[in-house]
């Protein structure tokens, strides 16, 4: 009986644990989406000079970088059990590589922000989107 209880409760904890991770991942993704929308809306912030707007854009870009760093750290810190039993060592390495790439993307976004290179952001975000989609396609069903 005790063994059954431990088994059931551990199953629940594991499921809840996975759900929390998935939820956190979703929250960060939603945060990214909102930040990108807010960046698009900066042009409509009234009574700011173009220099002020650029500073606003810079702040949003730095927040975007922070969010990508968080996402990357979450993925990096996922254990093998978080990733599911069907994954091979190779798959796990591949998954971690996506996390590493995300972190590098964040570094590039920080760099663009400090240089006020906003025109290059969309291209960078496209790269991030491609990377996210590839990762989701390969691993989301497994999680």
């Amino acid at each position: 009986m005790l063994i059954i209880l431990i088994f059931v409760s551990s199953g629940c904890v594991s499921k809840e644990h996975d759900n929390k991770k998935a939820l956190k991942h979703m929250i960060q993704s939603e945060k990214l989406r909102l930040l990108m929308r807010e960046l698009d809306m900066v042009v409509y912030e009234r009574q700011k000079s173009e220099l002020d707007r650029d500073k606003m854009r810079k702040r949003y870009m730095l927040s975007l970088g922070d969010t990508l760093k968080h996402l990357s750290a979450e993925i990096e810190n996922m254990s093998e059990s978080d990733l599911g039993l069907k994954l091979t060592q190779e798959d796990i390495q591949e998954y971690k590589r996506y996390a590493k790439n995300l972190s590098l993307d964040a570094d590039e976004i920080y760099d663009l922000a400090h240089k006020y290179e906003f025109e290059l952001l969309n291209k960078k975000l496209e790269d991030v989107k491609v990377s996210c989609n590839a990762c989701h396609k390969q691993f989301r069903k497994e999680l």
Partner: protein
Amino acid sequence: MKILRFLVFLFFVKSLFASGNEIELKSLDMVVEIGGRAHLSMLHTSDQSSFFAGKIALDRDKKSDDFSLNARESRLWLKTKTPTEYGMLRTLVEIDFLGTKGGSTSKNDYYPRLRHAFIEVGGFGFGQTNSAFNSIVALDTISYPMDDTLVRQSLIRYTYDTKLFAYDISIEEPKITLLDQNSSKSITKDNLPYDLVLRARYYPLWGELGISFLARKILQDSVVDNTKDSKYGYGVNLSGRIKTFALDDIRFNAHYGEGSGRYIAYGAFSEGTISSSGEITLTPVYGGHLGYRHFWSEKLRSTIAFSYIGADNNLDVLQTGLHKVTKESHAMQINLLWLPIKNLLTGVEYAWAQREVLSSESGKANFLNFILRYDF
């Protein structure tokens, strides 16, 4: 936005080194950006009023409805950025066409007006731009709230910027208007010390918050015969934005000042009054606004806002012409803005405003404003 990238390579042939001839290549990487907006405004007013705290027509001055159509709010700007050893050097020059109210009937030849001419490097900035006393967040409306805190002027500013906070100290152009006993404006120009503004801004995840303090000396020298007087004026301006659901937010502003007149409501109020003996009395001005912005969808949004501004003018000094002096104004705005394609904004706003003057007369006006604007 069109971007022109100029790479200017400067070649220097250096003098002979011990090891032999060397050529050093220095590059100056200046990026020049040109942009602006084409803006068409269609405004219907109930009595030829303007939607500003001091310009709502009184009932006794009622005129017929007015419909106007113009593109004066179109803008053009040029900005540059150049990396230097002190950080990015950024400059901006911007013009609009709001300086001329009525163009000729055939050509509408509105003249350019300077909005910004500003240089910023290593935290230091100088030139003409928005005062540091201005609100850091504005309502997402087509017309301005009654209490709008917006001044553009020449200034020298230092900003210390961190990720979460920014602090500014700004020395700004001084200008003073005082009301005499006939409620006429006198502008004092001589020997004015600069206005000082201190500002702190906070950028948490939940929004933005800014507080500014204004300190200035209000003085008159021989405005009335050979008299002299001075007073210290001040103002506090708190503004911010609190994010609520998704992209929705609450935007607010509150201010109080004595002698802060021209910084608020586009000069609807003076800094103070000047008596027949030359004595200055500062006028307390107070107001605020509150607005909620809601996104119906990614491309459709609305704002509803209420604003108020009032002042306690010195009635011991002001004897005549009281109908010229605004006591208080309040307004309500509601709009619907639509972004059919990126950077093309169109929308309609209904606004209602009321003004009361010191003679206890008042006036109300309705406004319907339609815009079509493209930012490039």
